[in-house]
């Protein structure tokens, strides 16, 4: 029986792509005041960003419950005896704990391996895609988990933020805190290192940010996969895809939207680009 793959909505894997890949995506939760929504299921990204800028209070987010994972595991256990779970960085969310607790609740009914992707958004999404493609070759659970762990170091996320306000207020600023407090208006360019947000540099305008990202991507010679995501500015992302087409076939670039839970920390106008480097030969 083939290994089944489970991830969470912070992978920014769209429902279409999830279906195509044959994987299960467990939603986190985002809460505005008293109302709780399942990420991407009960609230669309469009609705979310509208509320994010219009509501007085910032939303908060919550990991899936162990029971959420348990139900997924039990359903999958009917079709397979091996499940690989790839989740968002444990430094950004407690999702890993929920997935692991649910594994214990399964009491060995099915072999389950939970892997911390040490990443987020398509930085994690492309790791999942890469593993799914490999597993078609009939790898077992241990091999698949090794593939996932091996892909972590090859995944490079670079993000343009319009503001650090949301990241700081949400307590996920990590090593990027050094960028706070600028007297000039600057746009941070961030990445994820060892599972937490870290600074790359700062620019003063969107176009300078896009230039930086283009040059960053151009620095890779061996690209296995690429993804471009936006929060509220699809046109900017589309233009970037056009431009990146000079480096990598643009029809192979995954387009996605930064999910509400991630958007809680990125805020509007953010753009995220992920490169999955090819394996060294």
């Amino acid at each position: 029986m083939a290994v089944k793959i489970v991830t969470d909505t912070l992978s920014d894997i769209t429902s279409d792509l999830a279906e195509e890949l044959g994987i299960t995506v467990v939603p986190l939760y985002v809460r505005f005041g008293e109302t709780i929504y399942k990420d991407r299921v009960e609230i669309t990204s469009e609705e979310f960003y509208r509320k994010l800028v219009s509501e007085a209070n910032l939303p908060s987010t919550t990991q899936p419950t162990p029971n959420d994972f348990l139900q997924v595991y039990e359903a999958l256990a009917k079709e397979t005896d091996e499940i690989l779970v790839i989740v968002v960085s444990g430094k950004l969310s407690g999702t890993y704990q929920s997935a692991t607790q649910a594994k214990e609740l399964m009491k060995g009914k099915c072999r389950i391996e939970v892997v911390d992707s040490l990443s987020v958004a398509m930085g994690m999404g492309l790791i999942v895609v890469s593993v799914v493609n490999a597993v078609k070759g009939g790898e077992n659970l241990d091999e698949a988990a090794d593939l996932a762990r091996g892909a972590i170091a090859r995944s490079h996320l670079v993000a343009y933020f319009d503001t650090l306000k949301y990241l700081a207020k949400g307590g996920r600023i990590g090593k990027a805190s050094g960028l706070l407090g600028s007297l000039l208006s600057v746009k941070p360019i961030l990445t994820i290192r060892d599972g937490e947000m870290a600074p790359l540099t700062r620019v003063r305008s969107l176009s300078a940010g896009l230039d930086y990202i283009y040059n960053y991507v151009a620095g890779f010679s061996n690209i296995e996969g690429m993804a471009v995501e936006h929060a509220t500015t699809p046109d900017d992302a589309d233009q970037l895809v056009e431009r990146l087409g000079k480096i990598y076939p643009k029809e192979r670039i995954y387009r996605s939207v930064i999910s509400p839970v991630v958007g809680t920390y990125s805020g509007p106008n953010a753009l995220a680009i992920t490169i999955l480097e090819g394996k060294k030969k």
Partner: protein
Amino acid sequence: MSQIKSVAGQDLRDMFSAATSWLEKSSADIDALNVFPVPDGDTGTNMMLTMRSTMEEAYRAPDHSAAGIAHAMARGALMGARGNSGVILSQIWRGLAQGLEEKETFTAADLAAAFQQSAQIAYKGVSNPVEGTMLTVMKDAAKAAQSEVDADNEDIIAVLEATVNAAAESVANTPMLLKVLKDAGVVDAGGQGVYTILEGALRFLRGETELMRLRKPQIIVSELPHSASMPQSAVVDEVPYGYCTEFLLKGEELEPEVIKKRLLKKGESLIVVGDDTAVRIHIHTLTPGNILQLAAKLGTMHQVSIRNMDEQHQDFLEMQKERMPTTDTAVIAVAAGDGLADVFGSLGAAAVVPGGQTMNPSTKDILQVVESTLSDKVIILPNNKNIIAAANQVQSLTQKKIAVVPTKTIPQGVVALLSFDYEAEFNTNAEIMEKALPSVKTIEITRSVRATKINGLKIKRKQPIGLLDGELIAVGDTNLDVLNQLLSRLDLEKAEVVTLYFGEDAEAEETEQINDGIMEKYPHLQVELIRGGQPHYSYIISIE
């Protein structure tokens, strides 16, 4: 959500017991917030140990009423208080105990009143209360509790929520009130501790024990601009710290107020708290022996601790090194004017060397600042063509690795600093920064110091003149006139951001005019107005 209208003694104990575990998870992070030169190196640990002692006593209390538990807590805190923060914390519990006097259970109104009492007593215990510390946080938190109660809210959870939110805001605001925090870019550690304890208590009442087990408290981040630590104040000056001296004095008919008066002149950061049988004393002094002699005449001394703060300071510097961002490279900039120094500081410059157009710093001035930074690799931004040579000399005088990015103007310096790549190596970074320089144009407007002829321009003394990238190419009757001449020479269609740094002698009205003029003429530009405070140059304008 369910409401809680009254809380019994055991719940009081359990909620602060949970808060202690919550604080414990955060104590290392709180330690890391400590700011030199406030040399109590371990606020988080001190508060955590104080809370442990507080709660141990609470569990021993024979009387399980709210009043009984609160009294035991106050006693445990006093006996086990550690450090400045621990002593103030013990005052908070003493206030709580006074506020809950004779209560079997307590209501939201009782709690708010008790918090008020806590804040008052905490202020009283300190000889020289400073705002922007845990005192302020407790005061703000208590105030919020009271106004929630005044708004007829009887739900203890809601009142505590208001208290915790106010505490969080107050913590975020501490750098605004206390310059050392602002310079270091951190919030007050003691304040963060108070917030974490209150938050822990709230989470317990909300029934979030499972979550408390999995998560850990967040350190509040302040979004305030932080300025560069000017080398003179931070590292070059060696302030004598002496010894952090603390002990518990037991005796009969002790008079804390009298003891406080007698110790007042003997040192700094004095705290004397307690009652007639036990008094806790904390002082930073150069002569701990004298303090102990004095105390020995009054009673018996317990838990005596004398620590050399210079050593603590060294440890602190080591710790700071570990806390540096992902990079081991420091950037220092030369700038005149407090506004410009703040701009460089806020963008991550490790230090600013005072100087500029008319006051060129010497190689020695720059060297001194280079040596004062914690990094072994330093990039220098001279920001003036007459300073580049002096900066280039520094390498021959230091073991540190030096790179000079030849910035000739302030805007070039800013662009270079902004383009700093946090993941690049030292040499690569110097290259990246230098490559960024052509992306900015600099306009400087000043007044001629003498009559002259230059570049075909006839210039009278004190007449406004304008420089474009360091070259004198415009003269006129007003600053505005000169600026317009210069702007007409630039292709502003391709520009995106204009930053206008106005100097110490710039007139507000004229500055507005210039700002509005640019925005009107070039609506696609993002214009930012920043107080540079630079001497002699009315305006320095960056066009990117």
